[in-house]
């Protein structure tokens, strides 16, 4: 009996050893084959809206590229910023300023952007307001959505300060709509926003406002990739997006981002932006 037990134990151990090796091999293979790349998106809209726009796109990309993509949302912009500054996303869709920071911090590489338009901020006043020039806003209260909103806040404040040299009291009212409403209700002499959100306002609001000033322009949001993503994957994704844009269905999907004319982009496209000193107006999370 003593002999049987030991021989049986040796047999079992062998089986286990062989199984383990197989398992590791399998895992390596699948890990290699089933790598999920995270795709972070700046929370311009709320989660459901974002999902509605991006999930179909990512699924299409998955099909085209064969890689697995997972949409990762962030509750708010600061969280998103923390995310890309920490390099949590393999891919990310962010605003032009973000991409400069992201590149600086993590080396993110812009892949694709909308080539058909430029990004800029608008400053609105009430139609019946006496203010006719930016200079008259000196010393006034101006509402902005969030401090780091690129067009509505960063570009605008940079222009107002650097270009027009006016003093003003900024009020951060969380959303573009709030910014406009503050102006409508007279709580701010002017308010910052972007054309996109402005034109989507109710006529009740829109009809009471006019655009006083538009900021300098910059290319719009890119889709960027973390350097750790292999180059061939990066290229695959880039190509897939461009090919998607060529199809009517794909173009429609992309237009929801919005990217209406997907073109290849690179960091140099955003360099001018880097010289406008936007970091002075950027508020780090925790500040």
């Amino acid at each position: 009996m003593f002999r049987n037990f030991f021989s049986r134990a040796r047999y079992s151990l062998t089986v286990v050893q062989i199984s383990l090796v197989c398992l590791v091999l399998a895992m390596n293979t699948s890990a290699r084959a089933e790598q999920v790349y995270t795709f972070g998106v700046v929370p311009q809209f709320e989660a459901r809206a974002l999902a509605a726009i991006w999930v179909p796109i990512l699924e299409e990309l998955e099909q085209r590229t064969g890689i697995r993509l997972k949409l990762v949302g962030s509750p708010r912009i600061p969280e998103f910023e923390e995310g890309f500054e920490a390099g949590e996303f393999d891919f990310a869709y962010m605003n032009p300023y973000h991409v400069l920071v992201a590149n600086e911090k993590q080396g993110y590489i812009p892949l694709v952007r909308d080539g058909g338009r430029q990004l800029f901020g608008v400053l609105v006043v009430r139609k019946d307001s006496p203010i006719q020039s930016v200079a008259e806003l000196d010393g006034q209260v101006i509402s902005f959505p969030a401090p780091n909103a690129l067009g509505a806040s960063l570009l605008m404040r940079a222009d107002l300060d650097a270009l027009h040299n006016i003093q003003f009291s900024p009020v951060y009212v969380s959303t573009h709509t709030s910014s406009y409403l503050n102006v409508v209700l007279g709580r701010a002499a002017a308010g910052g926003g972007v054309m996109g959100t402005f034109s989507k306002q109710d006529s009740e609001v829109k009809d009471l406002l006019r655009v006083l000033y538009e900021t300098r322009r910059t290319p719009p949001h890119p889709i960027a990739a973390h350097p750790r993503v292999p180059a061939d994957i990066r290229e695959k994704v880039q190509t897939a997006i461009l090919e998607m844009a060529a199809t009517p269905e794909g173009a429609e999907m992309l237009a929801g981002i919005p990217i209406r004319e997907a073109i290849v982009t690179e960091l140099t496209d955003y360099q001018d932006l880097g010289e406008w000193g936007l970091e002075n107006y950027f508020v780090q999370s925790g500040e």
Partner: protein
Amino acid sequence: MNVSDRVGIKKEGLSLTYRKRWENLSLRSKFILLLIVVVAGFDLAFIALWQPRANQFIVDLQSREVRNELATAGEGMLPFLFQNQIAAIHETLDVIMGRHPNWVALDFKDADGNRIYPINLPTIDATSLVHLEEQVFFRGEVAASMVVAVDFSQEQAELRKYGYSMVAIATGIFAFAMLAVAVFFEVLIGRRAAGLSKAAEAMADGDFEAELPKASGDEIGQLIHGFARMRKNVYDTQISLSEAREEAESATLAKSQFLAVMSHEIRTPLNGLLGTMQLLEATKLTKRQSRFLQTMGTSGDLLLHHVNDVLDLSRLDAGKGKIISVQFDPNNLIDEVIESMWGVAKNRGNELRNTTQKATELVWGDSIKIRQVLFNLISNASKFTKNGKILIEFVPSSPTHFASISVTDTGIGIAEKYLGRVFSDFEQLDTSHIRGAGGTGLGLSISKRIVEAMRGRISVDSTPEIGSTFSFSWDSAEVPANTQPLADEIQPLQIDDGKCTTPQVSLNILVVEDNRINRFVLHEMLKNEGHNVTEAENGKVGVEIATANRFDLIFMDISMPEFDGMEATTAIRNSLQASFDSPIVALTAHALPQDIEKFKSAGMNEVLTKPISRALLQEVLQSIARKQDTECLSGDLDHPADIPFLDLECLDEFVSSIGQEKAVEFAKSFVSDTESGIESLLNPEVEKMELEDISKIAHKLSGSAALFGAVRFRAGLIDVESHANDCDSKNLKSAILELMGLWAQTKNRLYVHFDL
């Protein structure tokens, strides 16, 4: 009456109608009506009073809810407000507004009163809206205010609907319950009450056996119980009352029978007495004897008067005095009475005068009773007046139908204290004032009774030493002529108008009277008048003599033993012999209307009451004599006496047309036909004969009579026929009787003419 009065009356009339209609409803209907009114009242009160209150309560309740929500929302808006996140405020408030369809508008302002939401406040129709405001506090200070305009109309409408359905359900339940109660009560009370009332109605109609509803222990049951007992009581009372009435009636009957008998028993000897005295008066008397006789006469008259008074009174009390109604000339009546009382008045030196104003029309009334009363009053007046005047005046009736007569005297008068007692029974004034006035004191009380029986009034007005006026009235309204001639009065013989001279005819008279004295008296009376009298001492003998001999007149006493006057009369009439058609005068001490009927139907022509007065006797004799005298017209004869029994001219013509032999044959058969016809008419069974048959017989005979020129007989037949056709059985009977007489005469003449 002005308009408002009329309207008032109309309104009153309307409300009366409604009240009447309410009263006439059944218990059930009343209950249901009441129920409807109560329920309707409750419903209206509920709607008018409770509903608004409930409305307000709901509004208050909801308002509190709204305020709470406002406060909560306001609290929720504060962070957004502080961070100027206006869009968030707008989004949130939009959602909240969306969730409250009845929040018409929401106005959110900051602490400075600047509107935050909405951008533009909509214009709203504020009439039906409730404005609620809540202030939002932060650290003890107002940070914002929210005003919401709420439309509660839907809630209110729902509440109203709910209220209505509640009312409807409550009403339904209540009504159902009440109807159940109504049915319950209907069974317990309504039906039983109806049954009871039916039994009461039946009882009123005489049915004491109607079924009563079941009697239970409750109040209705007790009512039924009580009713049953009451019914039994009433029934028993009715029985005993009718028994008592029967007793009373029989007592009255006995009394009147007693009266009749007594009146006969008293009057008969009186008759003998007075009659004999009258005869004695006519004989040769010494002065002394004459005086004695006068005294006897006075006493006798007085006695008769008293007897009549007492009997009158008893009769009137027994209700026997029937009032007739005839038309008469009051002036004439007064004159006649004055004429007959002239002597009485003259004795005391009094003058009687008729002071009736002008010529009067005929008036209706019981002339006999009026005469009686007038006699009484005048005799009274005469008693108490000496060497004075007594004036009688008739006052016609207008506008009421009461005529009156007054008797005024210039006598000693009556003291006021006695005026009330004057009409009482047996009252007499202090006799010291009256000398030889006499009287039983019954005259006025009888007069009073008589006047009252005529539905009139009698009264007296008097001043002592100056005089008195008695006046009485009677109902002079026209009365249909279905009244009987008065009982014991002599049938008013048709008094002629004086045109006829009354020849002194000597009649053959038969007196059938069982009482020796009465017979003797009558005999002497008649003998004095110059008539030939035969006596029969009983009915049988009377019939024998009457059927054997022809008499012009028969006096028939009614009450005779064995064979009474009526039987005798019938026998005589039926015999068709000798005096079968002679006038028969009934002699009776008492004659009630129904007796007169009997007498007449037995065949009597007249009725005389005992004691027989000479005057009336003479009247009867005169009328009989007049009938004998064919030259005189008598008012009551339908056939003028100068019409012959046989129209010889007509007869001769008839004979010549068919020849003597044939005429004789014809005559024979005519006689035998007529005999049998008359016999059947005179048959006591004639009442059973159909009037039609009588008419036929008469008609048939009148044809033949015409041929033979038997004019008077034919006229009699026509009478019979017409009375039969008119169903006038009374006149028919007398016509048939008359026919007998006519036939006898005609037959005799026919026998003579044709030598049969």
